[in-house]
């Protein structure tokens, strides 16, 4: 997946070199999300804070169950409640706290200012409605345009996401489209109202590798064209390198490290990030010229702590090769270790 030129990155470099253009679009602060009842619950998201700037792609990385999807759904106001409880925190967007918006106001944000695409393109489109209708309806709901006008715009969107014969596709049903094409339709639909932020929750995970690469190219392309900020959720560090400007690493419901993507790959601070990067398999490292195995794949010892257990100190301490007594007792907070590079770890202070 190594692509020489990264369009998305190039764009942000331009924005970054002109500081007056940087504007924080979305600011999530101290977000706590529980599932269950007030008495008996599990903590899915624990004190998460981050921000997304204009025109930037932020990737949230972490393994299954670390709270990245729940975090993104909370921005959309799509956490089912009950059993979900947003216990604490704020999500600031455009001067509004999304967590305190009325249902009707939140509906106007969804799909209009902030749009979202999901992991499963196979099941994310309604099987009994035409592609055309599913693409047009968001525009009709938010932009107050006629069905005919929305249809015209939808065809343009299909062209933008590079779907051949868009007029024909409009009349088709999802089952007549391939997985990659359905994800393109999802992306086109999400972008149809020109949202300021696109949340992409593992949009390439369910696709095969060549289609993955095409979808990532497409997203980079579109970002350059529309200047949409992207919140990209993934567990695939290869994908992160491909698309992100900044990376936020999550572990067991907490954020543990945040940095620009090159900085993170070159100088990981948190032992978990370090372990993740070391675990990426590289052919030259593991195989010698005659195809015999040089060394086994690297792995991190231990497993993710159970969400049913309350963690006092650092959630990674039980697996951490550097852990000291302090790590099991005091919870490290996110601190800037190097300018622009934050981590929640005691180690830099020793």
């Amino acid at each position, binding site marked *: 997946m190594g692509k020489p030129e990264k369009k998305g990155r190039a764009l942000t470099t331009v924005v970054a070199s002109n500081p007056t253009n940087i504007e924080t679009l979305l600011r999530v602060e101290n977000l706590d999300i529980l599932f269950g009842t007030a008495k008996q619950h599990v903590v899915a998201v624990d004190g998460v804070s981050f921000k997304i700037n204009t025109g930037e792609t932020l990737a949230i990385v972490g393994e299954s169950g670390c709270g990245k999807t729940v975090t993104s759904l909370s921005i959309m106001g799509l956490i089912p409640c009950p059993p979900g409880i947003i216990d604490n925190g704020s999500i600031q967007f455009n001067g509004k706290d999304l967590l305190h918006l009325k249902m009707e106001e939140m509906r106007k944000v969804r799909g*209009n200012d902030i749009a979202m695409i999901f992991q*499963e393109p196979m099941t994310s489109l*309604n*099987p*009994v409605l035409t592609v055309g209708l599913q693409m047009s309806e*968001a525009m009709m709901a938010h932009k107050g345009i006629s069905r005919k006008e929305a249809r015209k715009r939808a065809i343009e969107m299909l062209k933008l996401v590079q779907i051949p014969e868009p007029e024909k596709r409009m009349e088709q049903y999802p089952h007549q489209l391939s997985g990659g094409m359905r994800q393109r339709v999802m992306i086109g639909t999400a972008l149809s109202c020109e949202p300021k932020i696109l949340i992409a929750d593992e949009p390439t995970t369910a696709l095969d590798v060549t289609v993955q690469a095409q979808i990532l190219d497409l997203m980079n392309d579109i970002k350059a064209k529309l200047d949409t900020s992207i919140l990209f959720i993934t567990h695939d560090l290869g994908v992160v390198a491909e698309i992100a400007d900044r990376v936020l690493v999550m572990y067991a419901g907490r954020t543990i490290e945040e940095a620009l993507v090159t900085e993170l790959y070159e100088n990981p601070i948190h032992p978990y990030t370090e372990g993740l990067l070391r675990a990426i398999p590289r052919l030259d490292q593991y195989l010698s010229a005659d195809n015999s195995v040089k060394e086994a794949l690297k792995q991190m010892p231990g497993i993710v702590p159970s969400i049913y257990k309350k963690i006092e100190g650092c959630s990674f301490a039980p697996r951490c090769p550097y852990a000291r007594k302090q790590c099991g007792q005091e919870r490290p907070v996110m601190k800037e270790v190097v300018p622009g590079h934050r981590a929640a770890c005691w180690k830099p202070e020793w």
Partner: protein
Amino acid sequence: MLTYFIRRVFTAILTLIIAAFAVSMLIYLVPGDPVDAMMGDSSSFVSPERVEEIRSQLGLDKPVYLQFPFFMANVLRGDMGRTIFGNEPVLPLLLSKLPNTLILAFAGLAVAILIGVPLGYIAAYQKGKFLDSILMLGATLGISMPVFWLGLMLLVLFSMMLGIFPVAGSGFGSLVLPAFTSGVIAAATIARMARSTMVEILQEDYIRSARAKGLSERIVLMRHAVKPSLVGVVGMIAHMFTWMLGGQIIIENVFAWDGLGQLAVSALLNREYNLIQGYILIYSTMVVTISVVLDLIYAGLDPRIRYE
């Protein structure tokens, strides 16, 4: 789509031929000599000539392997024989009762749909909440109640005690109670089906997508949830409709409704085999027709079936 339709009609005709064969063989299920059995106690009053006439009318004077062709040829000519008592042609008699039965079945179906479908959807939307529990308790009661019992209770309450509706008859007033009886019981089954279908659909990814687009809850539910649920719900409605057409036997007798069901019961009691054969054949035709129409509705509701 056209080939699908033609194939479906072809299998329907095949089904009907098999049904007709089974019906034509029914006469051999009668213990002893069918004609003697039909005559029962009155056989001594009937002349041997009349017995022979009935025997040939039933095709019993022909060998077994000719029984079905004989029966089928007659049916295709619209001749299902005559009744033993009264010597009336069977088909016109049955057809004269058909409209009443259809009226009652459609009225019952209307009640079932109007009550069952919305309540099932509401229960699904309120899943796990108080209203859901109450509605599903009601549905379980509705399913467990015997038709005749509910019919009798309604008769006692509304006709005898309150005097709102007539006890029997054929006007609109006397349609209300029997339609309500069969409708409520079918509604219970339909509501449970509608609920479980809708509960499943509300958890689908595409409902989340629809919400993520910022569509109003009304559009999310009416467009994105109701439409995909219709295949299951319409199937159950059709199933209940065939149940009603058959279940009418009980309801028509409880409410003295002058339809096919009542005729069928008196035919059974009087051993009118021609009439019973005719009734079963008409009922099979209705069931097979409903299933063909249902398949066409399915194709209209779900594009995945249409383009198969």
